[in-house]
């Protein structure tokens, strides 16, 4: 997934905490200060969590971020004065209390007492009375409080105002569906390794293992599980029989139309899902994957090793050519860094971490990456541009900007039964119990850039 993590987590305590509310609060407080994301902070938190409570910790962290727009409006109404930034752990603790009362099947008295006790664990005894009073007031007055906020779009749709406005403007017919899907949870989807197994055979194996699943509608190797599960329980996972990958992300390999012996570049490759899929389909490729971050490049190598596939992984910037040997590529996949607004249901902190003005900055990066990769594409070659964004600014309008700059690109309309056809490329919206939000566009490089052919 090509999201940008702007911050790394700060140094964290490693001591185990048995009060899971306190652990969630302590772990998410840096995120509220814009230091890190769920993806970067959660592993540390899980390591400090007793094994039996890991599911609860995960649910609390994801739940608080998923309902952040509503929870923060509620807490603003409930608190006389806001918490100072050093007490953001208490703010998250309060949100987790409200979340438990509103969305979890935990007895309210237990939810409140555990949450209040969390303040003591955090060494902030002084706040126990405040938290107790605020949570009990919410318990008594939640109907009135919610009614008072119901008119605010941020509360009603549980998304930041800028996001709702931008979506209404860009997708007048789809915005409500997108907002609904963002508030739901996403299914777990697998990709069967075509070199090892047919989809039908693997479905049978899942059935035999008692795992309920069905074939995906659009992706030929895709299988959707009825319930998410630990990958360790999937038959053959360690041996590379399957990978976890959303159905929309599985559509890239076919669009690349790979032929044996081609040179393939996967720019911004981590974690390598689309690269591995391409190699599963066409093993006779000279594949080069580049990734800016060392740690994320490690994940590409892990995936290649598990699936027994071969590609050269380089730590490099897709907007530069300092790593390139000058030999053009016949195929290029540009899975561009993006707002990840198509995968909010999997990464509910995206809405909190992004600001409206980020989209313009991101689209400049996307244009730089695409323009740079275009120069490395062989005449007659094919480039697939992909994002997991739902904003046209990063997608069809970005491609339009690019086509104005170059004279040797032809847009190839994608004929498919998935997504929505756009003037340039195809847009996928997050689907109920289906694929994520995604965008694809196929461009080919004309045979001669300065001289046109007549025949």
């Amino acid at each position: 997934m090509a999201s940008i993590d702007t911050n790394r987590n700060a140094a964290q305590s490693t001591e185990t905490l048995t009060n899971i509310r306190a652990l969630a609060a302590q772990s998410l407080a840096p995120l509220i200060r814009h230091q890190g994301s769920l993806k970067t902070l959660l592993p540390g938190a899980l390591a400090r969590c007793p094994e039996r409570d890991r599911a609860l910790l995960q649910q609390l962290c994801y739940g608080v971020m998923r309902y952040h727009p509503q929870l923060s409006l509620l807490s603003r109404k409930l608190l006389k004065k806001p918490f100072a930034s050093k007490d953001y752990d208490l703010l998250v603790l309060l949100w987790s209390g409200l979340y438990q009362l509103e969305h979890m099947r935990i007895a309210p008295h237990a939810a409140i007492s555990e949450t209040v006790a969390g303040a003591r664990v955090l060494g902030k005894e002084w706040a126990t009375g405040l938290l107790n009073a605020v949570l009990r007031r919410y318990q008594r007055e939640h109907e009135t409080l919610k009614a008072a906020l119901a008119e605010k779009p941020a509360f009603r749709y549980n998304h930041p105002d800028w996001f709702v406005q931008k979506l209404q403007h860009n997708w007048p017919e789809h915005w409500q569906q997108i907002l609904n899907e963002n508030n739901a949870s996403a299914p777990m989807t697998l990709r069967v390794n075509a070199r090892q197994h047919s989809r039908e055979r693997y479905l049978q194996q899942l059935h035999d293992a008692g795992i309920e699943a069905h074939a995906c509608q659009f992706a030929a190797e895709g299988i959707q599980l009825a319930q998410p599960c630990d990958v360790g329980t999937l038959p053959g996972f360690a041996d590379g029989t399957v990978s976890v990958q959303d159905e929309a992300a599985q559509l890239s390999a076919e669009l690349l139309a790979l032929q044996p012996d081609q040179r393939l570049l996967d720019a911004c490759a981590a974690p390598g899902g689309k690269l591995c899929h391409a190699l599963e389909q066409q093993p006779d490729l000279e594949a080069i994957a580049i990734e800016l971050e060392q740690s994320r490049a490690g994940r590409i190598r892990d995936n290649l090793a598990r699936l027994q596939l071969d590609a050269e992984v380089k730590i490099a910037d897709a907007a530069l050519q300092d790593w390139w040997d000058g030999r053009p590529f016949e195929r290029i996949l540009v899975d561009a860094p993006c707002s990840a607004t198509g995968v909010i249901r999997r990464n509910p902190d995206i809405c909190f971490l992004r600001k409206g003005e980020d989209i313009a900055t991101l689209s400049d990066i996307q244009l730089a990456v695409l323009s740079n990769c275009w120069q490395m594409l062989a005449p007659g070659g094919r480039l697939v541009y992909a994002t997991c964004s739902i904003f046209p600014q990063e997608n069809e309008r970005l491609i339009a900007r690019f086509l104005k700059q170059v004279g040797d690109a032809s847009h190839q309309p994608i004929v498919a039964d998935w997504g929505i056809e756009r003037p340039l490329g195809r847009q996928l919206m997050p689907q109920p119990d289906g694929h994520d939000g995604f965008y694809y566009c196929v461009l080919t490089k004309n045979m001669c850039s300065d001289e046109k052919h007549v025949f």
Partner: protein
Amino acid sequence: MAIRTILEFPDPRLRTVAEPVATVDDDVRTLIDDMFETMYDASGIGLAATQINVHQRIVTMDLSEENNQPMVFINPDVEVLDEQPHSYQEGCLSVPGFYEEVTRPQQVRIRALNRDGEAFELVADELLAVCIQHEIDHLDGKLFVDHISPLKRNRIRSKLEKKHKQEAAHR
């Protein structure tokens, strides 16, 4: 060998449907040599006999930059292997100076006779696929401008008619 005159749109003779070649003999081979000479002279990469007002199903082609890979297709026929639409900015010796995006199937199988009259087949994609479909259109009396909007086609027609009038006046 001789350089022949290339017909230009909207000349009605370009609308003639060409006849299959019955026997590949020396006359046909002389015609092929003329076609190559005409094509190379005009800096084209493909030519259909129709374009020089010979209505037999013969196509010459050379996609190389050095003009050293001549290909001949006699009585060519294509079968679509991949219907995925592929767009290309096409130009044509019979529509000089105009280039328009035309969308055709991405991959085809070509069946034809070579200059010795032997049958061969070839899977074509990219430029070769574009070019052979363009040339077979010529043999069927069609032009790439038939694949674009009537508005664009009429604009090209009137510009070329104007050019032809000016050329006639200076002759």
